[in-house]
């Protein structure tokens, strides 16, 4: 069964939304401490990590946290390829113009999303827990895993983690696709009747 006009239009919108990932960061981690009145921040892009990374790395050695280097993340290579392919796939769905393919396309997105979040979480876990046993500052039982989303206090630092512009568009793209799936399914039921 063919896609509705809304369904077709949504593919373009989703692709445009996802294109923002190359223009804005996906995620934003803000850190605050008394001696950093303006705060420190780190932005995670689809293919890079930006912000005060060097300063954060300088501080990390006290607690023995590994320093953050762009080269350590294979994700910065794979994720852009994955998203590009996904966007191209959207164009294929548009050409084939079938509801079923749209459902599959949305399914792929959900899988990519879940895998990405899990991957992101495991990085945060790794940085927070894999500490140098010879670190100058050791607080028994203390881990320094920043929150995936939301606020957390760790020693003298407060951390706030949330989506950035690219991330919000990514989330909006997902929501839009799920909504359109529901809409298409509704439409197909009324058509059968």
């Amino acid at each position, binding site marked *: 069964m063919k896609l509705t006009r809304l369904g077709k239009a949504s593919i373009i919108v989703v692709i445009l939304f996802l294109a923002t990932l190359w223009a804005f960061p996906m995620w934003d981690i803000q850190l605050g401490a008394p001696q950093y009145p303006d705060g420190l921040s780190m932005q995670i892009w689809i293919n890079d990590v930006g912000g005060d990374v060097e300063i954060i790395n*300088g501080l990390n050695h*006290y607690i023995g946290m590994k320093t953050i280097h762009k080269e350590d993340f294979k994700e910065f290579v794979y994720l852009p390829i994955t998203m590009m392919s996904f966007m191209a796939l959207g164009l294929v769905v548009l050409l084939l113009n079938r509801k079923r393919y749209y459902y599959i396309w949305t399914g792929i997105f959900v899988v990519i999303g879940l895998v990405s979040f899990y991957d992101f979480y495991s990085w945060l876990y790794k940085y927070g827990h894999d500490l140098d046993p010879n670190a*100058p500052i050791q607080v028994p039982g203390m881990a320094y895993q920043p929150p995936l989303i939301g606020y957390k206090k760790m020693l003298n630092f407060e951390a706030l983690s949330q989506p950035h512009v690219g991330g919000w568009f990514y989330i909006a793209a997902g929501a839009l696709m799920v909504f359109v799936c529901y809409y298409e399914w509704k439409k197909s039921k009324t058509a059968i009747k």
Partner: protein
Amino acid sequence: MYTALGLGTFTILQGCKMKNAESVVTGNAAAKAYVAPGQYDEFYNFVSGGFNGQVSVYGLPSGRLLKIIPVFSVFPENGYGYSEESKPMLNTTAGQVPWDDQHHLTISLTNGEQDGRWLFANANNTPRVARIDLTTFKTVEILQLPNSAGNHSSPYLTENTEYVVAGTRFAVPLGEGDVPISSFKENFKSTISFISVDKEHGNMDIAFQVVLPGMDLDLSRGGKGPSHDWFFFSTYNTEQAHTLLEVQASEKDKDFIVALNWKKIEEYVKSGKGKKVKAEYAHNHLDEETQQAESKIQDEVIVVDHNELKGMVYMIPCPKSPHGCDVDPTGQYIVGSGKLAALIPVFSFDKLTKAIAAKDFEGDYHGIPVLKYESVLHGEVKKPGLGPLHTEFDGKGFGYTSMFLSSEIVKWNIETLEVVDRVPTYYSIGHLCIPGGDTKKPWGKYVIAYNKITKDRYLPTGPELAQSAQIYDISGDKMELILDYPTVGEPHYAQGIAASVIKDKSVKIYDINKNKHKYVTMGEKKAKVERNGNRVDVYMTAIRSHLAPDNIEGIYVGDEVYFHVTNLEQDWDIPHGFAIKNNPNAELLIMPGETATLKFVPQKAGMYPFYCTDFCSALHQEMQGYMRVSPKGSNVPLRFGIGETAPGVAAK
């Protein structure tokens, strides 16, 4: 009865105490000077250090001291004048001079308004002019002035910072000075140096020196607007005395204000006129990329004698050894302050040009036409007070003159010459400063008094007391004292500028990737020690919280050891310090991304701990190391390292 009378008289005498100063503070003065914790001041106040040779930076209206910028004196606390990088800044033709007397400051101008790029400072004793970069608050250039002594009428500017001037207070013989002092009249000359300033980079150069008859040039100001092409210098000792000036230089009723048309003199010199003469002077410049200052000795200046400058130099008679010589924001009025006069003459630029055109002269001074006092005079401020010294302006038509003898600031109307207000100062005010009050656009909100005598104002501290400053709110009709505070050094002139012009351009760190220092260590792995004969170069890095290498062996007595310490930090306000036990040298403060070098020549064998002196981090106390010094000729090999690479560690 007599006793009763006596007691009565005593009581009356007790009851008739003279008025004291405490009653002067009124209303919400404290609130006006109060800047809440965490809030910024509205103005930067750059204050000359006088006999400390430095420039101090205060915030206004709080009067909080923000920084001392080392300029003409060594500053062991950050290594200025001790580090290998900064030593050449204090070089002169007489070698390293560790001190000077710093009197006046001017912020660079564009169209007669402060542009906030550079701050110029004079050295009075060994004549020099310095340029301070207002993005780093660092002295970046010092230029020595030949044929000069007592560089007092300096560093005043033309409207677009085309030139910084430097007039000699002491007339001196040009070239070799080995002549009888009593030959003053024939051999002694006064010079005014016009120092050109590169528009883009600020680099200074002596463009030419104007040679005037021997006298004392005191203070000066560039013209503005209509008087743009002119420069004015007050003079004293036009009597040409060379001894007991106190009496002999006060004989004449009037001295002069010299008016020079610098624009015409510039053209004259550019046309190839003027004479190149031998004159040695040091020109020191800090290369901000290599972070290394270099001192060059230059050997020639262009001099041009006043006799050649027909129609370019005039004398305006001014009563009683004038001191200040100030031009109002419109550029129309020139205020001369005869420090022994009981009035303040105000000259009119319009009248000056007319009198020159009409050749309205009353004679000449060694060939320089002397204009008629009355033909140039706009009017006199009558009975302003005693001992007028300097005048600043609020941009609303008023002048504010400091009165040394009567210890007060007097506000007067420039047009009508009427005194409208006066306030006491504590005590014996010298200079005064209204932010921008010497420019076309004063920020007429405060006037600050800089006083020579403190006496009873603060808790006593033995015979040597701090000098003091007072801030007055001048936004209303009446001047209102809002703060009284002690100062460092001995403030003379000062400059104030709206914080907004400067603060956002302030540099936070030096980019380590742009560090072109000859001995930079780009990363801890490159830290090393190299020996070349008896010279040892230590390429050291500093980052929270260790110095690398922190163990060094194989140094011998008499070696010249240079510690080139690179601060690898790239975070704001994380300097590191560096000091070595028993080093007869100062310490270093190294800003993030900077490299600085401290020399040490050990005199005895032994263990020499070194450490970071700036409390940088939670593990600052751990930021330390050892250098082993062995007797000359011993066979301890050169070894160094940190952690696992430290000598003897891996072997175990």
